[in-house]
């Protein structure tokens, strides 16, 4: 933050006074930076004292869609006359900027860029190739890239100040993701969405607290001991989970390999891809021998799972209920799957702990035609929770088409908690939306959780 500038000018409540022109430059800039860029540039004709005032603004945001040549010309023009540090550069465009991005990155790297946001278009099926120059931007703290190809060079020393990295619809050849993440020691908030990773996706980030992954990978290993918020969403184009590799050639269970470091996790969301009808993440995690020292999640207070009933998958779901004794909020998505009554009478079910459970949200798939009625498995699950959760307050059923039958049955299940209420909720279209990709996210924004307190 700037040091305060003592002002010699006294108060002058004079109606004809020009208050704004003679403000110190840093304050004028603070005002201008809150205007859209075009309006900022237009202040250059206000008077002779305003010609260059705008060139000092530290944030450059190019969002309006114009012609390709128009856009490139405007960015070139602004970067040419700009003076002083460029703290933030944001470009949202459908156009092909592959030719120009090199020179822009050069200027940004020389002007101390801290906050870089490049979101390229979805109209053309072409990603922008981010130049190697990116790695010379040593002051970077926040990076948001969409539809980009990023090449991480071999001799990359990392961004020592980077704390936020959001990449979507991207491609990083080789093990670029792993290398980039591991070279950024302060990384705190990581989002990787809509990408394909061959081989193991390994995230080595000692200070990471927030992780959001949605992609196509066969193997995952999260070495992120400080992680408190995690959302792992696996979508595979192959559609056959038998292809998944077993970590360590089968010596270790996948759940230990993937999530074994997450001892501090508080909120976790595990999803498989909806529209291919194969729920891969649970099968993947369920693979591998049951070894010793399987992870326990003592700090987990909120979880989203899908009610998988295939044997390899249900084991994973139940694992969380057995090893996370402090869950308070549970979101569970009902999937219309084969019911195995024996499972619900097994010991695995009895080992489930719901000691601190307060809220249950039962979700129904919104954009697909599955699950128009509640499954038998969900009824069993509801019976289980209602009878074993002493602190239960809310049992919410969300967006279920045929609610009557479910309601009539639920009413008769014995409830351990006197406070437990069963509520039917219709979230409607505001959260579903036509875009299938969007519906997969139960929690669209990680910061929804950031304000929640943790009960220790």
């Amino acid at each position: 933050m700037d040091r305060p500038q003592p002002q010699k000018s006294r108060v002058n409540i004079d109606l004809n006074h020009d208050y704004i022109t003679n403000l110190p430059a840093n304050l004028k800039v603070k005002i201008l930076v809150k205007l859209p860029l075009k309006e900022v540039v237009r202040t250059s004709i206000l008077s002779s004292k305003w010609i260059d005032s705008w060139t000092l603004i530290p944030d450059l945001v190019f969002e309006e869609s114009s012609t390709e040549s128009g856009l490139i010309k405007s960015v070139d023009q602004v970067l040419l006359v700009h003076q002083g540090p460029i703290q933030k550069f944001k470009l949202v465009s459908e156009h092909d900027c592959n030719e120009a991005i090199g020179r822009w990155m050069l200027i940004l790297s020389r002007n101390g860029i801290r906050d870089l946001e490049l979101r390229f278009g979805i109209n053309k099926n072409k990603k922008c190739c981010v130049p190697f120059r990116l790695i010379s931007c040593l002051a970077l703290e926040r990076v948001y890239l969409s539809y980009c190809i990023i090449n991480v060079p071999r001799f990359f020393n990392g961004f020592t100040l980077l704390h936020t990295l959001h990449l979507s619809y991207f491609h990083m050849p080789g093990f670029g993701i792993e290398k980039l993440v591991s070279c950024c020691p302060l990384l705190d908030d990581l989002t990787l969405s809509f990408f394909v990773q061959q081989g193991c996706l390994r995230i080595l980030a000692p200070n990471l607290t927030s992780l959001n992954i949605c992609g196509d990978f066969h193997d995952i290993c999260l070495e992120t001991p400080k992680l408190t918020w995690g959302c792992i969403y696996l979508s595979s184009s192959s559609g056959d989970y038998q292809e998944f590799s077993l970590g360590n050639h089968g010596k270790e269970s996948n759940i230990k390999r993937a999530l074994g470091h997450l001892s501090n996790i508080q909120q976790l969301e595990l999803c498989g891809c909806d529209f291919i009808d194969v729920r891969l993440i649970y099968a993947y995690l369920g693979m591998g021998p049951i070894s010793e020292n399987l992870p326990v999640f003592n700090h987990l207070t909120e979880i989203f799972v899908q009610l998988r009933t295939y044997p390899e998958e249900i084991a994973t779901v139940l694992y969380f209920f057995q090893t996370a004794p402090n869950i308070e909020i549970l979101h569970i998505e009902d999937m219309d799957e084969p019911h195995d009554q024996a499972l619900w009478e097994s010991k695995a079910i009895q080992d489930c702990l719901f000691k601190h459970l307060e809220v249950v949200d039962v979700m129904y798939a919104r954009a697909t035609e599955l699950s128009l009625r509640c499954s038998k498995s969900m009824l069993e699950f509801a019976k289980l929770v209602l009878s074993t959760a002493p602190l239960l307050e809310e049992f919410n059923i969300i967006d279920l088409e045929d609610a009557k039958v479910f309601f009539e049955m639920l009413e008769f299940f014995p409830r351990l908690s006197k406070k437990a209420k069963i509520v039917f909720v219709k979230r409607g279209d505001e959260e579903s939306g036509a875009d299938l990709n969007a519906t997969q996210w139960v929690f669209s924004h990680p910061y929804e959780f950031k304000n929640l307190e943790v009960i220790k």
Partner: protein
Amino acid sequence: MADNGGKKITLKSSDGEEFEVPEVVAMESQTIRHVIEDVCAKNSIPLLNVNSKILSKVIEYCKKHVAAAEAAASKASTEEGTAAAASVTKPSDEDLKTWDAEFVKVDKGTLFNLILAANYLHIPGLLDLTCQAAADMIKGKSAKEIRKFFNLKNCISPEEEEEIRRENQWAFEEEKRTRAFDAYA
């Protein structure tokens, strides 16, 4: 707001008026906080660059924001667990925003003096609020309107203006706005 037992401090405006405020309110200003913490505990802090009218407005802002923060903190500590906190909306945030919006409905002179005071006293929230209000006065106006509104003396010749317009043609074009590019809703 807890006024009992809280240490009070006196702020003296440039025109000699004295304002007694709780220390926690005065500490909203990082400048004053440094004086209290680093220099030594003073009973009376003279502020040579802020007159009484502006200082009283600044104090009003600080009092309101300290009270709002205290209310939010006490509400959070009485709530049971995270479940209830997750579903609670934040009416106090909305109220504060409304209050802030009313607070900056002042004449230009007062607003700009508030900007200078917020800068001098290093009160980030107030500086941001007042700068946004000033930006809102500029937004959407043509150059002519801006000049009139702020009483700017236009001392650029038409030829100079033409040259600047040409240099930054892209910013001065009246182009059709294409549909907002919104892939990241």
